[in-house]
């Protein structure tokens, strides 16, 4: 899939609404204009612009004060749908932007539209109030398949599994009771993620919020579900700062654009494919992945390290490479900055001498299976050292025995 394969109509198919160069509907009512929108295949029954009072009762918030939303509340009369209510400081033009988003899938090929509806919380309607054209929007609830039981020790809780988990080792993932994805599971999830990114890029929408927290992951189905897509903006938008996701070539204070998105998508995919969250992700891509997935390796390294941000390959290129397709790179090759320096190997933290403390102390002995509180102390490491000791001891004894027999 490449940029040229995707065609996004500049004209409004629903008729009636004029459309600006960047695709924003000028009517303010989006696709719900004269011709009316195609029926929402997800089953949203009301118009694409709906008054808050027409939604019926709102249930207790499932989330509050998160990003641009003051609350996300289930719609009692519309099971499976949520009202995402915005802060009051949104600008009036956000109403037009939300309308653009709601109608955008109408312009897509069937497969892409189906993907956007099935794998993102794409907004279905803009909510307006008497004095506010953008009180919020209606979004679908994430499907239940993205919840799982996360177990650790004696605790367990069923909750949404953020894609955060994919950027951990298989061992860590299994440690909370989820199935280890292996490389195939990681590739499958990243294929879905990059397909969605390619669709957004084809729609000339900037997401800016590519990170661990904005996608759910289903280990069982190897699928992903993108959230907070109602924040997308055409062409560019204020750069949403998130720690550890800063684009080194997008200076602070400047807008995020498609090139920022490409860097963050590359970073997310590199972390999810390798299970590393730091510079080791870059090195693993450059070394291990080069053997198994050479095209993916090259695309990712260009996305992450190209010194000219406009030479970062498109999301569709990465998606194509992840689907075992070629990387069609324009000549000359983009120059790359060097790989980031690897962090040193972690030293074991100091060990609490839990069994030697005086009697009047507040800490009890450790559970027998751990022995220490050392965070990075692994039983395997101790066992390894013990084996080395045994081998050295055996060698010394052998030398003594041989010497004694001469």
């Amino acid at each position, binding site marked *: 899939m490449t940029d040229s394969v995707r065609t996004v109509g500049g004209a409004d198919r629903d008729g009636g609404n004029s459309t600006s160069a960047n695709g924003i509907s000028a009517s303010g009512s989006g696709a719900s204009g004269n011709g009316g929108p195609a029926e929402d295949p997800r089953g949203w029954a009301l118009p694409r612009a709906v008054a808050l009072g027409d939604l019926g009762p709102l249930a207790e918030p499932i989330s509050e004060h998160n990003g641009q939303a003051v609350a996300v509340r289930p719609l009692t009369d519309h099971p499976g749908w949520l009202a995402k209510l915005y802060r009051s400081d949104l600008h009036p033009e956000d109403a037009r932007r939300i309308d653009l988003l709601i109608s955008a899938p109408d312009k897509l090929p069937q497969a892409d539209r189906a993907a956007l509806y099935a794998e993102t919380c794409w907004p279905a309607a803009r909510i307006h109030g008497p004095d506010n054209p953008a009180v919020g929007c209606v979004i679908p609830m994430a499907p239940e398949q993205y919840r799982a039981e996360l177990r650790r020790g004696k605790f367990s809780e069923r909750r949404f599994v953020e894609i955060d988990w994919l950027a951990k080792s298989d061992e860590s993932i299994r440690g909370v009771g989820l199935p280890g994805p292996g490389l195939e599971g990681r590739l499958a999830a990243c294929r879905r993620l990059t397909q969605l990114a390619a669709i957004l890029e084809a729609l000339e929408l900037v997401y800016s919020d590519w990170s661990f927290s904005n996608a759910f992951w289903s280990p069982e189905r190897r699928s992903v579900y993108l959230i907070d897509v109602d924040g997308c903006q055409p062409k560019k938008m204020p750069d949403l700062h998130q720690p550890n996701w800063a684009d080194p070539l997008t200076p602070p204070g400047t807008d995020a654009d498609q090139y920022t998105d490409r860097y963050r998508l590359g970073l997310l995919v590199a972390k999810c494919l390798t299970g590393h969250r730091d510079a080791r992700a870059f090195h693993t891509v450059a070394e291990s992945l080069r053997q198994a997935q050479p095209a993916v390796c090259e695309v990712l390294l260009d996305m992450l390290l190209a010194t000219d941000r406009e030479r970062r390959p498109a999301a569709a290129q990465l998606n194509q490479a992840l689907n075992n397709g070629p990387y069609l790179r324009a000549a000359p090759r983009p120059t790359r900055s060097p790989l980031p320096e690897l962090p040193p190997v972690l030293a074991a933290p100091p060990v609490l001498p839990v069994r030697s403390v*005086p009697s009047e102390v*507040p800490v009890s002995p450790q559970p027998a299976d751990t022995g220490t*509180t050392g*965070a990075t102390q692994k039983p395997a490491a101790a066992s390894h050292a013990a084996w080395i000791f045994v081998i050295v001891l055996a060698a010394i004894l052998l030398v003594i025995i041989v010497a004694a027999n001469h």
Partner: protein
Amino acid sequence: MSLCLPTYVVIDASSSMKPHEAVLNATLSRLHYNLATNPRVSEFARVSVVAFSTDVHVVIPMSDMEQVPTMPEVICGGRTEYGKTFERLRQCIEQDVSTLRAQHYSVLRPTIFFLTDGGPTDALWQNSFRALVDRSWPRHPHVIAYGFGDAQRTVLERVATKALFIADGSDTESALSGAISGLLNSLIASSKTGQMQIATDVKGFEYVQVAQEYVD
């Protein structure tokens, strides 16, 4: 370089906490679960758990809590020695910040969450405290204090440099649970923005804004 917030959860484990020991341990285990199953938070907030009474014990050294297999049980008893605690915390911070920097982290100002149900039993604790929060020491931490039970508000007003939470009459066990939830919410919020964010709406506590960094 990844951002990292060195976080110290400092718990009063003196004899006055003995009746609430089971709840204290359950609450700590719940904290461990919540941190260990939120990779983004445990990556950002490296946590050390310190229990103090007559002596000070580093229950969990500075760690990614996902890597900590289980939370050790704390057995309460002894006096409430603030001075030794602040002294030990200074040593820990000095060492931990160096270790994190060596691991290529961009280290934010350390934050101490100080949970106590009583006043100090040592007279000279303020000397150690001054050394801990001395602004001329580049690694001086923020201190967020949660007081409940017989905690002394006037003392905690001197200890808290960033925020103070005083139990609003809730029983100790509810207050413990509320304090740990508040602490966790602060870490979650901070991990999203990359800077210290304090969850001020803590069930069972009155939030007291700290007007200055610390009071001599």
